[in-house]
């Protein structure tokens, strides 16, 4: 029953917001700034670079980026600066720093955020055998968890959709490590590990939380695993996918989980390649198309843990950064059309763009909508009035410019909704006058932000 209630609450949450975009965010490693990309435009429009000089000092590198589920924040790791930055991206055209955490001597590399948005786990890309756990509700402190498995490290990390299973991989000892998050979200319980076939450097978990793919660079393969319970991982029924000519670096699943896409780097300084895998079932993955296109990034050895590939929520395209530790001035972020695997360079991006992520800009519907039926007595007759009220949704970080009001007859089809009016964002009420007795209506109110994006409606009626 509680799960059912939670489901309905979650659907209600989804029902109050609207997605637009999507937007991409790229982390430029050595110039220590970010760019955002409006992928809703053709060609994609690039904004920035932003925050130059604010994300670290000379010699430091910002590596990975991960987006909170509400799309309001991006977390960015600064490896040598020992910091994690929280960037408010609710207005993608004006990202601003919304806090940072200094992690002592910890070297933040790969960032994984739990699907429920409660916590993040960050790997240490250096010689520390620790993971950092950050409670995202406050973003004010962190806990370091020292791995219990002897002599193991974790360069890459991922969290399952059960919000409990954490999987790591260690390139140096060629092992896969996994465990279950403890109740206080500060570490792992039941940590375990097993050997990997090759050198694991990056992890991706399928949307349904069942299949784990691990990019194995020097083995030129992708390891396949299966989550069979919280913190419980086994080898997949197809334990690996081979046949890659280059080194897999980043993997991302399609939203429906039926495909996975792989970016491979190489050691010759030539173009990055793009392949796709067929997901046949939990832990069962086979090669779909190897090296189906070249990307616009010249690589030379691969970064550990940095997620250089992201698939759009609609699954129609992906963007890929440069997965290499090498910065080649010719490299740009690639936009890959997933229907025909054509890749184009997004010219305005920088050559040192590594970590990428995609997110939807969200506009939330107004809250606490109310309707009061009033009667206005003109003595010879009565006018009936529906008086609507609502409140601004505090979750909206972008500037709301107006509210839009629609009406349909009660019990009529939704297709009969007609727009009544728009009111300024400072107005939180609308009076629908001149109504007849026993004639009732249902209303929808939407928020419109300053870029014209409209939320899903909040609905109220007589």
């Amino acid at each position: 029953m509680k799960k059912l209630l939670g489901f309905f609450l979650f659907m209600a949450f989804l029902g109050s917001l609207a997605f637009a975009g999507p937007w991409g965010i790229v982390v430029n490693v050595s110039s220590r700034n970010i760019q955002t990309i409006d992928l809703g435009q053709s060609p994609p429009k690039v904004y920035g670079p932003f925050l130059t000089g604010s994300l670290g000092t000379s010699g430091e590198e910002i590596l990975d980026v991960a987006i909170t589920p509400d799309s309001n924040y991006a977390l960015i790791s600064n490896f040598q600066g020992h910091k994690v930055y929280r960037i408010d991206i609710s207005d993608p055209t004006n990202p601003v720093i919304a806090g940072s955490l200094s992690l002592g001597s910890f070297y933040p590399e790969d960032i994984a955020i739990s699907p429920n948005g409660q916590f993040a786990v960050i790997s240490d890309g250096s010689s520390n055998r620790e993971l950092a756990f950050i409670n995202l509700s406050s973003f004010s402190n962190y806990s370091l968890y020292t791995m219990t498995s002897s002599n193991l490290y974790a360069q890459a990390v991922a969290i399952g959709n059960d919000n409990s299973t954490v999987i790591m991989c260690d390139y140096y000892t060629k092992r896969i490590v996994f465990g279950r998050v403890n109740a206080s979200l500060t570490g792992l319980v039941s940590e375990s590990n097993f050997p990997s076939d090759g050198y694991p450097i990056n992890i991706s978990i399928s949307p349904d939380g069942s299949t784990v793919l691990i990019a194995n660079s020097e083995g030129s393969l992708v390891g396949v695993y299966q989550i069979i319970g919280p913190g419980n991982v086994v080898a997949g029924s197809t334990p690996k996918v081979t046949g890659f000519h280059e080194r897999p670096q980043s993997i991302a699943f399609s939203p429906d989980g039926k495909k996975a896409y792989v970016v491979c780097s190489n050691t010759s300084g030539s173009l990055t390649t793009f392949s796709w895998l067929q997901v046949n079932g939990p832990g069962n993955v086979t090669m779909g198309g190897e090296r189906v296109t070249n990307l616009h990034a010249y690589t030379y050895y691969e970064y550990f843990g940095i997620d250089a590939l992201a698939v759009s929520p609609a699954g129609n395209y992906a963007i890929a950064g440069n997965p290499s530790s090498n910065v080649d001035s010719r490299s740009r972020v690639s936009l890959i059309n997933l229907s025909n695997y054509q890749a184009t360079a997004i010219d305005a991006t920088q050559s040192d763009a590594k970590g990428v992520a995609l997110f939807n800009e969200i506009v939330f519907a107004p809250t606490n909508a109310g309707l009061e039926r009033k009667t206005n007595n003109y003595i010879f007759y009565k006018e009936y009035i529906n008086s609507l009220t609502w409140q601004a949704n505090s979750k909206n970080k972008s500037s709301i410019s107006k509210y839009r009001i629609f009406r349909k007859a009660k019990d009529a089809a939704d297709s009969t909704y007609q727009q009544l009016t728009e009111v300024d964002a400072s107005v939180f009420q609308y009076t629908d006058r001149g109504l007849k007795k026993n004639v009732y209506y249902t209303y929808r109110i939407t928020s419109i932000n300053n870029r014209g994006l409209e939320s899903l409606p909040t609905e109220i009626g007589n």
Partner: protein
Amino acid sequence: MKKSYPFIICFLLLPVAVYAIDFSFGFQAGLRTVSDSAIKDVYGNGQCYFPYAAINVFKGFTIGAGYEFGYSRSGTIGLYEEATTLKVTGVQAFVGYQLSVSMVTPYVFVGFGSFSYTQTVESEAAQTVDATKSTFFVAGGIKIYPMKNVYISAEVKYVPLKVKPIDDEVDLGGLRLMGGLGFTFGY
């Protein structure tokens, strides 16, 4: 059509006038009260005027006709206190009896009137009420003749006028407390 009522009534009275003992023309002005509390709250009591003509046809029996106007009141109405105006006019015909006692003549009338009323509200959400209703009424008063052909009058008239032009029944009736001046021309 409504504006032609006085002419029609005069035309109908013309054959009677041939046999009349005397004619009277008068003008009354005074207070028009309203019975309905809602009407009273918004519009209140007002003035009204009543020019009329009457014919004393036989031993004090009188018939006549007149036009009541002047009740036009403004106020604010409803939740939003919007500006509104109510106007009531009426074409009236009456029959009565007057008793001549020296210089004082008391009289009583019964009559029938066609009353037009218009309500306007300055609001896009409102509709204009413009309708007509006919009703009987009663009146009584006295005439005092300070001179042979000139009289002053004082009259109380009650007009019951319940109307329902749209949804709600409203009592537009009320008393008229009027005084006036008249002239009598005899054969």
